């Protein structure tokens, strides 16, 4: 008897929660909610922007999730999120979305700090990733296989890398694959013979970025258009941004927001303001 009643109660409670979950909680907390998802490259910076933003605007709650550029674009299209993040240019069939460039980012080719190879030609990078150069000896170091690491299909960083570095060549199947900037960095930071590519903003002392065609990857070199492996970080909205999403986007494009991005090693688009 009591179990039966409990069961019934459970069902009723569940029903109530299921129906009212979303609206009640929003009503109780009276918060402005902005959901953001997409590129793992843009995600850490958005997370940082969101942290600062929520200090200034305590009634806001910004949910930031990674998932990849394509997922972000998709989620944005079917309105699962308010803002999508992408680290690659939109494809023609995705152009229905509104794009807002929040900053530029270089893609750095990184090696272990102990690696004496500090400079590569763009064509050498291409040959490493297409599997033509397999040994460090060919690059003037010791006789040891190169442990190259790439990103997975669908990643914005990979898309940009293929477009800017690989051109028509395919990335070789024997090359290791990791699914975020962070995990590529982990592999390169722990394997002395590894080489990978990741967002310039993510480069720290644990890995070292090599010069490409004798240009050091710095914000300055990107601004002067000397460093060529550069892609935009995009925020995407379905139609013109509205309501709470606008407030956050305006913050990101404001002087404060852009300063945060600059501090993180990215190249702001709105510096003059």
């Amino acid at each position, binding site marked *: 008897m*009591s179990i039966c009643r409990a069961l019934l109660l459970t069902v009723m409670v*569940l029903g109530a929660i299921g129906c009212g979950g979303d609206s009640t909680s929003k009503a109780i907390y009276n918060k402005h909610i902005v959901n953001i998802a997409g590129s793992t490259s843009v995600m850490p910076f958005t*997370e940082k922007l969101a942290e600062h933003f929520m200090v200034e605007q305590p009634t806001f709650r910004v949910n*930031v999730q990674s998932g990849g550029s394509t997922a972000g674009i998709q989620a944005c299209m*079917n309105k*699962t999120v308010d803002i999508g993040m992408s680290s690659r240019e939109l494809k023609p069939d995705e152009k229905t979305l509104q794009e807002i460039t929040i900053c530029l980012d270089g893609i750095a080719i990184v090696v272990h700090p102990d690696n004496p190879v500090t400079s590569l030609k763009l064509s050498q990078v291409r040959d490493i990733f297409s599997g033509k150069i397999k040994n460090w000896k060919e690059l003037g170091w010791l006789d040891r296989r190169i442990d190259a690491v790439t990103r997975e299909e669908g990643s914005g960083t990979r898309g940009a890398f293929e477009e800017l570095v690989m051109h028509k060549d395919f990335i070789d199947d024997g090359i290791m694959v990791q699914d975020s900037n962070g*995990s590529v960095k982990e592999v390169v930071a722990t394997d002395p013979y590894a080489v990978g590519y990741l967002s310039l903003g993510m480069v720290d002392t644990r890995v070292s970025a090599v010069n490409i065609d004798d240009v050091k990857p710095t914000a300055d070199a990107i601004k002067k258009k000397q460093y060529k492996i550069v892609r935009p970080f995009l925020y995407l909205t379905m139609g013109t941004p509205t309501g709470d999403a606008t407030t956050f986007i305006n913050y990101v494009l404001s002087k404060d927001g852009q300063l945060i991005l600059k501090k993180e090693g990215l190249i702001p688009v709105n510096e003059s303001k």
Partner: protein
Amino acid sequence: MRINPRLIDKLVSRTLSMQAYFTVGILVIIVFIIFVKGISNCGLSFMLTYPEDMGRHGGIFPAIIGTLFLVALSILFATPLGIGTAIYLTEYTKESRFTSIIRFGVESLAGIPSIIYGLFGFIFFVIKLGMGWSLLAGAFTMTIMILPTIIRTSEEAIKAVPKNLRIVSHSLGATKWETTVKVVLPSAAPGILTGIMLSIGRAVGETAAVIFTMGSSLRLPTSLMDSGRTMAVHFYILAREGISMEKAYATALVLVVSILAINILAYYTMNKVTSKYS
């Protein structure tokens, strides 16, 4: 030359015991490493503060809350269903084609790998039902995942209840349901509880099915439709993306200690049951 069989026996016995202790050694080493590397960063404040800078600093409070919510919800959904199924299978029906189909279903569910649950939860709850990455989508997925454990342990527990108890109850004029609720379930309760605890352990440690259904937002979830992170997912992201090894170990410590505690409690309860009836 014939080797003395007694000698072989001794050798084999030694080798086998070495294997057994080696395997237990693996467990001890895992727990030891996590403990030593995690303890210095893991305190009450770590568990009660919010993470900063993606978890590089601060604590894991939202992840703990996310885990608790996920576990509570999925247990809440799965327990009535699981016990109901077990009661049906043991008390309300005879072995038939239908029961063997149901048993087949339960066995199959138990064998499906978690990534398939992740795929399913993602396409069904997150996309088709439009729940988005949310606690609710995660909880529903987890419910299906832990259901077989609850069904199997409950069924065994109910089966272990001596038949005479039921006969006596029936002869006193109780209906089948009254007998089930007042006689069978109370005696089977510790066994059922064991199943629930094992399920909690499974839900706490799961990553693949959770990350694609509940998402990985670091904020404190405040509604069922909010995305959130469990400790296991948080640990995975911290470790995999090299955000902070210290915090990763500390999170792993909380994770492993809670799972081991739950499992040990489960074995303790189960032992009490077996000693009661055997």
